C-alpha cells in the first residue's frame, strides 16, 4: 500500500493544524469554553497523528478494509464529527433540563414574592 502523496500530506496537515489553531484561538478569546473544546482538539490532534505517522494509518486501513489510506482519514473525520454532534445533543438536553428547572423555580419563587407583597 502506498503512503499519502506529499501533496495529500501537506493538505491534510494544513487542515488539521488550522482547525487546531482556530479552536485554541476561540478558547483564548473566551468565545469557546474549555469544556466544549476538548473533543475538537482531540479530533484535530488525531488527524495530525494519522497523517504524519503512516504505519498507524496503514494498520487501521487494513483492519477496517478501506481501499486507500485517504479513505481512512475521511472516515475518521466523519466519525469525530458524529461524536461531536452527539456530544452537543447531550449537552443541549442537559441545558434544556436546567432551563426547565430554573423556569419552574422562577414561577414558584415569584408566586411567593407576590404573595408577600400583597400581605
Amino acid at each position, binding site marked *: 500500500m502506498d503512503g499519502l502523496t506529499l501533496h495529500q500530506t501537506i493538505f491534510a496537515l494544513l487542515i488539521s493544524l488550522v482547525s487546531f489553531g482556530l479552536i485554541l484561538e476561540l478558547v483564548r478569546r473566551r468565545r469557546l469554553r474549555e469544556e466544549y473544546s476538548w473533543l475538537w482538539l482531540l479530533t484535530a490532534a488525531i488527524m495530525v497523528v494519522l497523517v504524519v505517522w503512516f504505519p498507524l494509518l496503514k494498520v487501521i486501513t487494513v483492519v477496517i478494509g478501506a481501499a486507500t489510506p485517504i479513505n481512512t482519514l475521511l472516515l475518521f473525520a466523519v466519525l469525530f464529527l458524529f461524536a461531536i454532534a452527539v456530544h452537543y445533543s447531550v449537552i443541549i438536553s442537559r441545558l*434544556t*433540563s436546567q432551563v*426547565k428547572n430554573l*423556569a*419552574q423555580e*422562577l*414561577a*414558584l419563587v*415569584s*408566586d411567593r414574592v407576590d404573595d408577600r407583597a400583597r400581605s
Partner: protein
Amino acid sequence: MKPLILIPAFNEAGRIGRVVAGVRAAVPDVPVLVVDDGSTDDTVAVARRAGARVIQLPFNLGAGVAAQTGYKLAVREGYDCVAQLDGDGQHEPADLPELLAIIAQRKADVAIGSRFLGVGDYQPGFVRRIGMGLFGLLAWLVTGMRFSDVTSGFRALSGDVVRFVATEWYPTDYADADVLITLRRAGFRLVEVPVRMYPRAGGRSMHAGLAPVYYVFKMLLSVSLAPLRREASARKGS
C-alpha cells in the same frame, strides 16, 4: 388529607373560567391552582377572576413541565393529594370527588379517570382509537396491567406519587402512557375510574397539526425504554 386541584393551562382564556368555576362548585373546600404555561392570552386574569390561585411560567415549556411545576409547589406546601385536570373543559369537575376519595381512602396511589368505562359517551376518531389501543397494549405488555385509557390527563395522585413525579425525570411534553408505566413499575397502585369527557370547546389542542406524529414517536420510544430506566427502581430501593 390536604388536597390540591391542579390545572395546567396554555392559552385557554376562553375555557379556563368555566373549568375553574366548575371545580370550585364540585369541591368548594379544595384550593385550585392554575399553572399558566406562558400563555399569550388572558388565561391568567380569567383564572384569577374565577377564583384560582395562578402561578406563571416565564415562557411556554410544555404541558408536562406545567404540571410538574404544580407538583413541586404541592410538595413544598405540604399537599398530600393532587388531582389534575385539563384547562380546556374536556374533563368533568363533578368527577373530582370520586378521584380524591380513592386517594383519601388509600385505595390506590394513582386514580386515573378513564372515558371508556361506561360513563359518558366520548367517541374518539378512528386514528385516535388505533393509537390508544396500541399504547394500551404496550402498557399491558410492560406492566401486566390493563389500562382502558392510557392518554387520560385526568387523575389524582397521592403525596408519595407527587413527590416521585416532582423529581428530575418527568416528561416535558406529553405525559401519559410512559408516566403510568413508570409509576406502576415503581410499585405504586393504579386504578382507573370511570369519568365523563367532552370534546374540547375550541382553542388549540396540543394534538394538532403534525404533533400526533411526534406524539406516537415519543410515546413508542419512552414506553419501550421505560422498563430499562432507573427511576422505576429508585423508589423500590428507598
